[in-house]
């Protein structure tokens, strides 16, 4: 052995073109590893870092639920006549909407908050907004257990349409993910996005049949208008499938036929496309814009 022998280079490594940062990239395994790890650590951070932990995520929607239940049943007398299981519908709607709101509004600042990581390491950028969605999903799944207890306690019997519930959830996840992607990169450039989104989310809460049933207006035009909102379609479907009330109108009925659902479908697909497009376009430059 000669002391001067050059070190044996790590054998068999071929050159590979490096194209810079991107939304995906780095292989699917690493993407999902990172997504899972970031979501879990964030979930742990929030719920083991506070005294009441997970309870906070439950107390918030429950408090909102109690107040709204009181206001809408005792003051406005919404429930009872129109909805068979108004409290259950209200709770389920609040829990699902809380998920949408939490995931999207957390995603707004997510990329900027991770500035240190973004500017110093290379990894699929898409992980960041999607991790906030996944973290919110963990909360949602835990809260849905509570919803299930309520559903059973209020005497709703299990039916086969419950199996359709996950499909509705998938639509909700897709929409939430797309909005999160768009918001997270837009915020890097335009800081007003944060304020705008709190307002928009507030408006969305009222134009989605959560506090009131779709047919509360007793006016087909309003019902049709509501069904332009893809969230309204998703929430109405969930109500039908889970609570299976005999007199609840289906989204198709509310929209005045299948054609009436076209705007909602267009908005849904448009949001998905826009989210994917803008994130893909901005991802390579995020580190420079920060």
């Amino acid at each position: 052995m000669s002391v001067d022998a050059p070190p044996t280079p790590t054998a068999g490594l071929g050159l590979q073109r490096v194209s810079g940062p991107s939304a995906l990239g780095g292989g699917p395994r690493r993407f999902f590893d990172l997504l899972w790890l970031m979501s879990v650590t964030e979930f742990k951070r929030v719920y083991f870092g506070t005294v009441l932990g997970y309870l906070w995520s439950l107390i918030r929607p429950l408090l909102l639920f109690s107040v709204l239940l009181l206001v809408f049943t005792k003051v406005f007398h919404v429930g009872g006549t129109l909805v068979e299981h108004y409290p259950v519908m209200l709770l389920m709607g609040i829990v699902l909407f809380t998920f949408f709101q939490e995931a999207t509004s957390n995603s707004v600042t997510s990329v900027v908050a991770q500035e240190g990581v973004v500017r110093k390491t290379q990894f699929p950028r898409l992980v960041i907004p999607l991790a906030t969605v996944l973290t919110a999903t963990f909360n949602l799944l835990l809260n849905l257990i509570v919803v299930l207890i309520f559903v059973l306690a209020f005497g709703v019997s299990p039916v086969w349409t419950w199996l359709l519930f996950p499909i509705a959830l998938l639509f909700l996840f897709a929409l939430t993910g797309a909005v999160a992607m768009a918001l997270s990169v837009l915020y890097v450039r335009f800081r007003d996005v944060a304020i705008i989104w709190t307002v928009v989310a507030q408006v969305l809460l009222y134009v989605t049949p959560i506090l009131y049933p779709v047919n509360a207006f007793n006016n087909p035009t309003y019902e049709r208008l509501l069904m332009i909102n893809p969230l309204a379609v998703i929430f109405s479907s969930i109500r039908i499938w889970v609570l299976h009330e005999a007199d609840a109108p289906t989204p198709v009925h509310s929209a005045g036929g299948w054609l009436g659902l076209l705007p909602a479908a267009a908005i849904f697909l448009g949001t998905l496309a826009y989210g994917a497009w803008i994130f893909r376009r901005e991802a390579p430059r995020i580190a420079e814009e920060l």
Partner: protein
Amino acid sequence: MPVENELTIQPIPSAPGPDAPPAIRVKDLHKSFRIPTQRVDSLKERAVHPFATREHRELHALNGISFEIRQGEFFGIVGRNGSGKSTLLKLLASIYRADSGSIEIAGRLAPFIELGVGFNHDLTARENVVLNGVMMGLTPREMRRRLDAVIDFAELREFADLKLKNYSSGMMVRLAFSVMMEADADVLLIDEVLAVGDASFQQKCADAFHQMKAEGKTIVLVTHEMGAVDAYCHRAMLLSDGDIKHAGDPAEVSREYLKLNFASELNSELEKTIPAEENEPGEGADLAGLRIVDEEGEETQTVEMGDPIHLEAEIELLRPVPGLHVGLVVANADDVSMFELSVPIRSKDGDNIKGRKVTVSATIQNPLSPGRHFIHCGIQSPFGVSVFRSKAATFVVFGTHPSKGIIAPEHEYEYVIEGEDDL
């Protein structure tokens, strides 16, 4: 050579030959940044002035550079601030995207950029280590297996469950460095880390570097510390204004770097901030000029350590002066006089110099340590001339190695290691 000794001696790897496979190949890499003169940060401004051409200026960080780093090579990148070296590193690390040109890398790459790999300050050290490992391309399982090794290397066992926001900056850097070491990448990109931690941790880093070098890892080091370039690198490259100014032998590159650095530093503001102190009005004589020149006689402000110092002084005489004497005192930055050069001036016609101008050229052996130096000049005659000019000139002695003490005398040495044959 006795064979049994060899195993204990760590082989000092020489540079991989030119036929070694490439680890990094960069071709015609361009990168520029658009710097808006007025940043449009809000949608409102966009909405109010939708057609306003947003003014920006183009900052060219890299102007089409090409180079190749071979596998097993320890490659240094040096350059002044703003030379484009950090941009280059971020392009190599896939943090920025190049405008044009190509980068090819063989194997997995671990970056270590700007002190701290990019930690989430709300998470504990353990969580951050795993997260970072996964970012570098390891599986979570693999990284959890190495977690203890990382924490131990960083000497942070007691603080492993502490959130990073409670860490000192030194602890954070130690952790980051350890993650990079354990990430087991094929190519390592390292930016300014040699001043990490305390003395014992620095030694650990130095050992680790040597080991990585011995293992044949490809390492790209960006640094200001020329000593490190000399000590570790097989080859180096000097960047200046987005171009490769010099590439090759590390000693040469670091010399070029120091020259470039001090030259521009002196030419800019420092010259103005150190004005020559006002001299007393000369009675019959004045110092018209004092400058340091290089071998070609061109004015310079830098002298390499060990190279002779060439001086030129011009003295103007306003009346005949007998017994003229010029004294030049070289002092260091702390104003400690290092030595004096005494030049008695005698005219051919006797002591009395009638001429108007005397030029003194001197060559001084240079025992000075690196650093800034000043020259004070005194002109005297027993017959009424006494001029003293403090800090009449300044120059910087530069060297690749920092040296303790105020002088660095030339020296020779030899040594014998017991049991080894003479070479």
